[in-house]
């Protein structure tokens, strides 16, 4: 037997032992095992998810062989759930795989409590009415839910999670936590012990830029009544001073100092995102609060007390030109401060736990450490219920994007993906599903679209004829490549929701949510890609890009 660690090496390098363990503890339920569902699970089984339960009531037909790799000739006429499950088990014997031959829609209606045994449900190819029902069931049972659907050359993935608290958000670009704009006494003392004007040229070019900047900022502040450079001219002047400190042109450390000088100018204190989180009503904790919010409460206390307006220090520093000795000493100073901050937070966590009647040691040291290290990057996402999205649509946005040059196709498919379910509820088949009724289906779908837009309150808006025709041409087909694309995204979302989220506590009574006012960020996402060479995906997190912001407003709107 190969060591599982070796087998998972390439993914452990991304999500580490903690992520792997979250994956291995998860039990996942799949609804419908067409290619979209099968491909989603395949990616998770390979990664070593704990257990899977495949639910599908259909038998394998000849047509399934053309779009689903998990079934072959020998499967025709047999339970699809069984065949897919058998194949998936072959991929990884560490995964517990089982199947239930039953139609998901029936299960949703007859046995809602069935779903509460799972960590997460992946619901594929479900029509709207079942989605709405399942969404409520999972929300109440606090089971994570991800919808995925492939439809011709389009489709969507949609997360539905009451709250997704992210500790290790691992953003791509995030400023390192050097505190150059607000150094603590030990760092200042260390900088003071070093002479920038050292005569030895080797020592001069190996003084780390952190030291250079702390000293220069200190000097500046002394000369400017305690203030740091803030105007454009002052910043320029500060950089000139840095340049003047160079004794040779090849001094990389001074070049790095000039490049990093903006870190001295950066405003002190915490970001507005973090401010929003610590002021969320959930940070007023009680015995029902999750570990995450208990730690947020401790963080809040820290920031106003010991932190002096700052979050706990992250503790790591980037590589920089330096002598080994100075670099290692600098590392130790940052690490010591981070450790001290952690101990304070840990103490605060313990007393909060005690106060709310929980075991003071019930949140592990590792967890608190990770929380402290990532405190500046915390994210909280809350998702609207699908029902809310349907009953309370954001009319101005829908109208705006239906006519937007770049997004009209994506918005059009959003409307059409809903319209086909209305169509199917009326006519017992999807538009274009069978040959010979194309013209009639096109006009029926057009009627369904107009009806839907009217119900949404978007009177006068339309979806283009071309898109309506295209949707009928798709005829509810589930193409393998599209299913693999959508399934791939769905499995990535599963991993993100599982591993970046904090383990949920035994207390699962989240009640009293009262709509938009309290919500920090309410996001879901729809993937919509058409055949027109267009791939537009909207995002769940990541507010920096206007276009992304725009996109996730498409289907799920509550303003922050």
């Amino acid at each position, binding site marked *: *037997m*190969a060591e599982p660690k*070796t*087998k*998972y*090496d*390439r*993914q452990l*390098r*991304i999500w580490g032992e903690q992520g792997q363990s979250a994956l291995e503890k998860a039990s996942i339920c799949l609804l419908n095992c067409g290619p979209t569902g099968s*491909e989603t699970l*395949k*990616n998770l089984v*390979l*990664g070593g998810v704990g257990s899977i339960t495949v639910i599908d009531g259909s038998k394998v037909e*000849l*047509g399934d*062989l053309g*779009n689903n790799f998990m079934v*072959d000739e020998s499967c025709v006429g047999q339970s699809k759930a069984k065949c897919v499950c058998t194949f998936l088990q072959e991929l990884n014997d560490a995964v517990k795989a089982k199947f239930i031959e039953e139609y998901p829609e029936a299960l949703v209606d007859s046995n809602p409590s069935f779903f509460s045994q799972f960590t997460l449900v992946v619901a594929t190819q479900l029509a709207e009415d079942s989605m709405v029902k399942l969404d409520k069931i999972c929300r109440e049972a606090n089971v994570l839910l991800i919808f995925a659907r492939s439809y011709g050359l389009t489709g969507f993935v949609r997360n539905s999670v009451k709250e997704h608290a992210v500790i290790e*958000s*691992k953003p791509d670009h995030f400023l390192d936590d050097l505190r150059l704009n607000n150094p603590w006494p030990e760092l200042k003392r260390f900088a003071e012990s070093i002479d920038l004007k050292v005569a030895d040229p080797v020592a001069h070019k*190996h003084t780390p830029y952190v030291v250079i900047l702390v000293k220069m900022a200190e000097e500046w502040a002394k000369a400017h009544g305690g203030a740091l450079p803030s105007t454009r001219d002052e910043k320029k002047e500060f950089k000139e001073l840095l340049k003047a400190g160079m004794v040779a042109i090849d001094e990389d450390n001074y070049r790095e100092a000039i490049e990093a000088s903006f870190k001295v100018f950066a405003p002190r204190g915490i970001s507005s995102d973090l401010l929003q989180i610590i002021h969320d009503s959930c940070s007023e904790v009680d015995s029902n609060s999750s570990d995450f919010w208990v730690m947020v409460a401790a963080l809040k206390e820290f920031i106003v007390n010991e932190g002096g307006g700052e979050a706990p220090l992250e503790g790591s520093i980037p*590589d*920089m030109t330096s002598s*080994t000795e100075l*670099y*290692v000493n600098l*590392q130790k100073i940052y690490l010591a401060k981070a450790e001290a901050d952690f101990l304070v937070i840990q103490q605060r966590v313990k007393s909060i736990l005690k106060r709310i009647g929980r075991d003071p040691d019930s949140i592990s040291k590792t967890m608190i450490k990770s929380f402290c290290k990532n405190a500046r990057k915390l994210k909280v996402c809350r998702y609207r219920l699908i029902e809310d999205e349907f009953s309370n649509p954001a009319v101005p946005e829908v109208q705006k994007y239906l006519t937007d040059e770049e997004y009209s196709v994506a918005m059009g498919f959003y409307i059409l993906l809903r319209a086909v379910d209305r169509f199917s509820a009326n006519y017992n088949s999807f538009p274009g599903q*069978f040959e010979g009724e194309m013209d009639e289906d096109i006009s029926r779908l057009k009627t369904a679209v107009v009806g839907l837009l009217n119900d949404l309150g978007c009177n006068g808006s339309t979806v283009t*004829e*071309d898109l309506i025709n*295209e949707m009928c*041409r798709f*005829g509810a*087909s*589930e*193409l*393998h*490549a*599209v*299913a*693999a*694309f959508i399934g*791939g995204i769905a*499995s*990535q*979302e599963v*991993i993100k929701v599982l591993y970046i989220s904090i383990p949920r506590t035994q207390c699962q009574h989240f009640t009293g949510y009262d709509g938009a006012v309290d919500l920090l960020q309410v996001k879901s996402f729809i993937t919509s*890609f*058409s*055949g*027109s*060479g*267009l791939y537009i*995906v*909207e*995002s769940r997190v*990541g507010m920096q890009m206007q276009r*992304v912001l725009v996109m996730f407003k498409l289907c799920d709107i509550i303003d922050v």
Partner: protein
Amino acid sequence: MADSTVQQSRSRDLDKLLLRPGNLVAPTFESGVQLRDDLQEYARLLVIGAGGLGCELLKDLALSGFKNLEVIDMDRIEVTNLNRQFLFRLEDVGKPKAEVAAKRVMERVSGVNIVPHFCRIEDKEIDFYKDFSIIVLGLDSVEARSYINAVACGFLEYDSDDNPLEETVKPMVDGGTEGFKGHARVIMPGSTPCFECTIWLFPPQVKFPLCTLAETPRTAAHCIEYAHLIKWDEVHSGKTFDPDDPEHMKWVYTEAVKRAELFGIQGVTYSLTQGVVKNIIPAIASTNAIISAACTLETLKLASGCSKTLSNYLTYNGMEGLHIKVTEFVRDKDCLVCGPGVLIELDTSVTLQKFIDMLEEHPKLLLSKASVRHQTMNLYMQAPPVLEEMTRSNLGLPLFELMGKVSKDIVLVTGTTSKDDKKTSCLRKLCLVFKGQDAIIDMDMAVGA
């Protein structure tokens, strides 16, 4: 519903896309049974790489209406592949990837024929690549992409107005992933940028200055690279370091630990040592699935016209939320690889040997050890020895005569070029014009003007 099962076929879902007319399709799209059958019968696809992307690509293409596939990969299956390369099992470890992947897909998708090639991409004759309708790349190295790109662009011919001749265009679809990120792109040599036009998209590899490694190490990676690049050679004179030999890796790890202790540096682990030395790119199943699916869709759109193709570069980032962005890059008109070729003027008396020497001096090329091909003929081959011997006598002959006394033509040259002190094999397209024969060219230009 009973009716529907009777008329069902294996291509139930794909038929909707291929047999029905549409409004949002490519201008070339001709829906119908003929199109479906032609895709099955005539479209021949080459998948390069049978790893994380390759396994997915073979499955996706086999289930997207293609029946004639070939796959080329030089690697054998390793345990670390199993978290994503779903066609392989533990008992396959050590077997050639291309062969196992081809066999598994053929077992499950009947009617599909996949020919595996267990070899390096450079081992194949250039003409091998000419036979395919589309080349799909599932690679993890810049060098391999560069090579295939040059081969495919080498087939491209231009008319006298420097417009690409359609029948010589060899389309490529390229995918790549790293962690939660990836890209998919469509390359139509001559009209969209080729790999070399946008080579800047690949950031240069991080390399530590040797003096940092030797004198002022600060990070765990510095200690590891010291053991790997400096200490190894000091201790094992002449013995090459083999990253796949666990004994070698352990030695580097032990030395790195010693050095880290000496300097008080934290963080050297065996896993990090492997990562740094082998430049391991983290890889997960889901991203490979997404990117391969996008590549397959583009391949299907290119081959059938059933929808408009991606124009021309898609980036995927699932790390923070989900971002997909499509960028339309533009060609580099002077691209050495996909452009009309480096123009070289020669006297009709220049011998092949003289020509090969000139290439070494040519400022744009700096190409040594050149092998030269003209159309289907090897004018001179450096290797293998048999071919070298056979073509050696050409060296003394004038190139003009060897090329059939045409006034202007393309030759393909392979050889090595040095970039940043590192020798890499390369393939270049040269447009040779013979002096004194330019009357014809002048006429061409006159017509063009």
